[in-house]
């Protein structure tokens, strides 16, 4: 396995690598270029990086204007501010006119760590998912994060991509890796239960699946990098094959991947679903890895919850 890398770092690298192929790409930040890693792009292309200062709502509006005039803006801030503070700007200035604005939101979830609950956005997928026409992605590693950035640039319309602060293992560095918006990826076959994970929980879930395997439980593992549009065919098929479904995300259990999967299955293939994620509560300060363990979102925590479920 390759070294760990945070998907925010992958994001900054991808922007820089794609800059020449996408001459209309411009990158906006709100005084967080060093943290969101758009600074990597800024260093290489200073004329195409616009620091809007600490004013996220205005930044999203500026991006809407840039897109209306033919640019492809990537706006960046922490998920809390990009999806939370600027929600209505994203909804009305970007979503409603279906403008070609890409939102690269970093520092999502409790893995923000020490900064604590005020900065740990566990609601962004829920918020963005409700906006008509919005594509919502949550890549699991370096390879997928870079692929998601490119796919977003090739897609006409608004896109939200969630990136993390914590370095995560590279799991998609396979020769046949292919990324397509809205297509889930089966990482492991299994017949007893389906584990559907997203973002940094994908690698934890793969580990949990190994632990289940040792107990004689055959778990299918699906990586959902696109929360919206959800790969409903894949989800329904897996639910019908295994009869039980677990969703795993570093997001509130309300409104995110778990809800998207339940929305789908309740209509098309009613199935018992266990939603693993951040319970209906705020986060807290602490090292990211410790918090993930404390909130039961590490491989062992996932394994235990699944054992109790089956």
């Amino acid at each position, binding site marked *: 396995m390759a070294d760990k890398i945070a998907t925010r770092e992958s994001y900054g690298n991808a922007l820089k690598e794609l800059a020449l192929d996408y001459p209309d790409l411009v990158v906006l930040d709100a005084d967080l270029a060093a943290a969101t890693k758009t600074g990597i792009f800024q260093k290489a292309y200073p004329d195409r990086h616009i620091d809007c200062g600490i*004013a996220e709502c*205005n930044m999203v*509006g*500026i991006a*809407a204007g840039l897109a209306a*005039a033919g640019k492809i803006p990537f706006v960046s801030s922490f998920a809390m501010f990009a999806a939370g503070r600027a929600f209505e700007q994203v909804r009305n200035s970007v979503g409603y006119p279906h403008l070609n604005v890409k939102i690269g939101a970093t520092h999502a979830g409790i893995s923000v760590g020490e900064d604590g609950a005020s900065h740990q956005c566990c609601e962004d997928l829920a918020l963005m998912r409700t906006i008509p026409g919005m594509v919502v992605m949550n890549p699991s590693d370096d390879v997928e994060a870079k692929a998601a950035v490119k796919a977003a640039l090739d897609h006409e319309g608004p896109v939200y991509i969630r990136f993390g602060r914590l370095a995560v293992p590279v799991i998609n560095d396979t020769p046949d890796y292919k990324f397509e918006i809205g297509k889930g990826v089966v990482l492991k076959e299994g017949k007893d239960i389906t584990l559907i994970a997203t973002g940094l929980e994908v690698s934890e879930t793969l580990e949990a699946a190994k632990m289940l395997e040792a107990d004689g439980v055959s778990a299918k593992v699906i990586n959902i990098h696109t929360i919206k549009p959800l790969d409903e065919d894949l989800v329904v098929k897996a639910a019908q094959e295994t009869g039980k479904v677990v969703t795993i995300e570093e997001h509130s259990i309300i409104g995110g991947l778990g809800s998207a999967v339940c929305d789908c299955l309740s209509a098309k293939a009613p199935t018992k679903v266990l939603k693993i994620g951040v319970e209906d509560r705020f986060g807290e300060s602490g090292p990211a890895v410790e918090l993930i363990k404390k909130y039961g979102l590490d491989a062992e925590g996932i394994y235990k919850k699944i054992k109790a479920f089956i």
Partner: protein
Amino acid sequence: MDINNLKKTANEVRKGIVTAVYNAKSGHPGGSLSSADIMTYLYFEEMNIDPADPKKADRDRFVLSKGHCAPALYSTLANRGFFPVKDLETLRHTGSYLQGHPDMKHIPGVDMSSGSLGQGISAAVGMALAAKLSNADYRVYTLLGDGEIQEGQVWEASMFAAAKKLDNLVVIVDNNGLQIDGKIEDVNSPYPIVDKFKAFNFNVIEIDAHDFNQIDDAFKKAKETKGVPTAIIAKSIKGKGVSFMENSAGWHGKAPNAEEYETAMADLKKIEESL
């Protein structure tokens, strides 16, 4: 510039506003009427636009940040030839492309969807920035309400516009002094408006919003100003042109009934005959 012609056109725009809101049985006539002269000037005198090619790349852009005054924008666009004047009667009707607030996806000539106050100015700033980044020489205009500038985003956008030296941007404040809940100074005073924009490093010009000579002079000065954006603070009369709507907060967001509609159109007919 033929001032009498502009006055006649503005009067036609006002007739369209009143007719649209009457047929919609809802909408915002007061602020639409107060801004009709400036919008007429922009679309008939100032802006580089082409009704036959509404999306031409080098066109000047207009963002109606006070999006509730859509009747004024639609009536101006219709009278300018972007779509039939008759269609104004479908405003706000189910299935009509003339949405209650500007919708760029469906209405020819609308450069930005708006309606949530404070957001249009940011989009206008983004368009002006795009022109600078592309070395294009089009200009961007945005019209704000004086109540709207209570929104904090207006000042975020203004700070940015001046910091980035967007001299291709003109911000117009329709200063009719009234918002839904009453006089702006009683609700939450934005005054002194001129000093605020000066403090945000704008070139600030004060005019009478209903005097075409002053309007013309202001936009010419804006064009000559380099290195800073311009703010035109336009003192206006809410409901201008319709006797019983003038200076009345009650006509901010209310449609006339049949009798009131007849009176309003008679008022505008009288103005037409005086020109």
